């Protein structure tokens, strides 16, 4: 479902996307200012931004905000790390072995398009509302861009390089480390960047649907209590989370891949 069309979209030219000029923030700022000036503080639907801060403080006074945020970030980071490792491994196997592709291809296609909200209740029934359950669901739904990118990268490693490794008498393990891994790493990094927003979405989903705490749980709970300022406060926090995680991944990718040629344009994986 969440193919990696975005990957090519943001690889115009060299390196990762450049942020457009900051003047473009004007409409967003304008909306918030007008909202603040004209909004009715008692509005049940659209409380102005200043009331979001008060709502956030009120939630924090009851000791809910910071622990929720911590939990969400922790689960997110753990899930993304596991997805990166598992996804790279699975992608390498699928890319290197035509047999594995033939045997597991249709199955991975099915799993890849499995809508995450439907996966959560299944996991809850089987494993209960535990952190392990959340991690399994999140990894299982967010790892696909990484798998596909790694698979594609392994398939396109020039035959010559693998043969050169053979000719030099490198062992299988050694070839994996010094021939395959460097060829796959850039694609894995791109996959991780694409998987980042998906991972955050599924973390929030799991929290909403399984009630395992975290910001996702908090926002739904605020909605059920008709605390609209609280809902908008959580939404703003989630927005900042989304912005920060994607910025961090963009920077990380640039730092890790600074000495490598860019991934060839048009490597589609969807």
């Amino acid at each position, binding site marked *: 479902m969440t193919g990696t069309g975005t990957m090519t979209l943001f690889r115009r030219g060299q390196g990762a996307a450049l942020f*457009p000029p900051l003047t*473009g923030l004007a409409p967003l700022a304008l909306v918030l200012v007008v909202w603040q000036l004209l909004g009715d503080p008692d509005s049940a639907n659209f409380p102005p931004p200043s009331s979001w801060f008060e709502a956030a403080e009120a939630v924090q006074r009851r000791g809910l905000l910071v622990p929720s945020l911590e939990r969400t970030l922790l689960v997110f980071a753990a899930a993304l790390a596991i997805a990166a490792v598992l996804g790279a491994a699975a992608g390498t196997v699928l890319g290197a072995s035509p047999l594995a592709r033939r045997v597991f291809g249709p199955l991975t296609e099915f799993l890849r398009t499995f809508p995450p*909200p439907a996966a959560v*209740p299944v996991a809850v*029934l089987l494993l209960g509302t535990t952190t392990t359950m959340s991690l399994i669901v999140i990894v299982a739904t967010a790892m696909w861009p990484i798998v596909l990118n790694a698979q594609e990268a392994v398939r396109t490693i020039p035959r010559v390089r693998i043969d050169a490794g053979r000719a030099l008498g490198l062992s299988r393990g050694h070839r994996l480390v010094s021939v395959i891994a460097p060829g796959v790493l850039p694609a894995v990094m791109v996959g991780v960047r694409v998987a980042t927003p998906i991972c955050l979405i599924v973390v929030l989903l799991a929290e909403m649907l399984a009630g395992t705490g975290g910001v*996702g749980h908090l926002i739904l709970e605020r909605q059920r209590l008709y605390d609209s300022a609280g809902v908008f406060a959580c*939404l703003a926090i989630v927005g900042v989370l989304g912005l920060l995680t994607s910025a961090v991944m963009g920077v990380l990718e640039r730092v890790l891949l600074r000495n490598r040629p860019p991934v060839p344009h048009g490597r589609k994986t969807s």
Partner: protein
Amino acid sequence: MRLRAGLPGLLTPLLILAAWEGLIRGGVLDFDYLPAPSSIGSAAAGLAAGGELAERLLHTTGVTLLAWVLALAVALAAGTLLGLSHTAWRWSMASVEVLRTLPAVALVPVALLVLGPTTAAEIVVAVYAASWPLLISVVAGLQDTPQRLIDVARQMRLPRSRVVVSLMLPAAAPLILSGARLALGISLIVVVLAEMVGNPAGLGAAISETQMALQPEDMWVYVLSVAVLGTVLNAVLLAVSRRALPAVLAREAS
């Protein structure tokens, strides 16, 4: 993406199903809420015969597609503006980039708050969520139009509107189509979630209801229906784009 499923590819799911059935019958696997495939099958037959499954499926499919079409319209209009006018791009693209990173699922509670547990809430939040990938792909596609095409158009003195409709948008089509597939998946996710936590209609609501009523057979039927729906929608759109743009897919299919 390979749709050519060979024999081994089809065999694997069958083997897994057989093992699943066998392990449960044999009492090796004993989860409380893991029914055997055969009991899921008979539950599906029951729900299909009662017409409930079709009704739910129709609701979710209809809302997903409606939201996707609306998002397509919004994104084509706004994207054409941002892709063609450098002023518009400079003065609003950063807002798009910021709003795009907001995880769409967090908007479901907001929509429920403002619009209540209604189908309108489902549609609004799904349109919002599905518009971003489309918008981004329309903008990127238009800005990447090969200079050659524009030169040719100039040579032929085509009017500007004609250039956009007959040259630039078709040139951007591959990118827009991949954005469209992304958007369709997102639309389905958001719709199902909105049904699970809000609007009591469609497959999403059916999943929550059967989960709470501890009817695992029925729940599995609805869960698998959502999964099949996702796969089918994706496959149909892919087939349509293959038909429409054979040249692009020759490159993609490698």
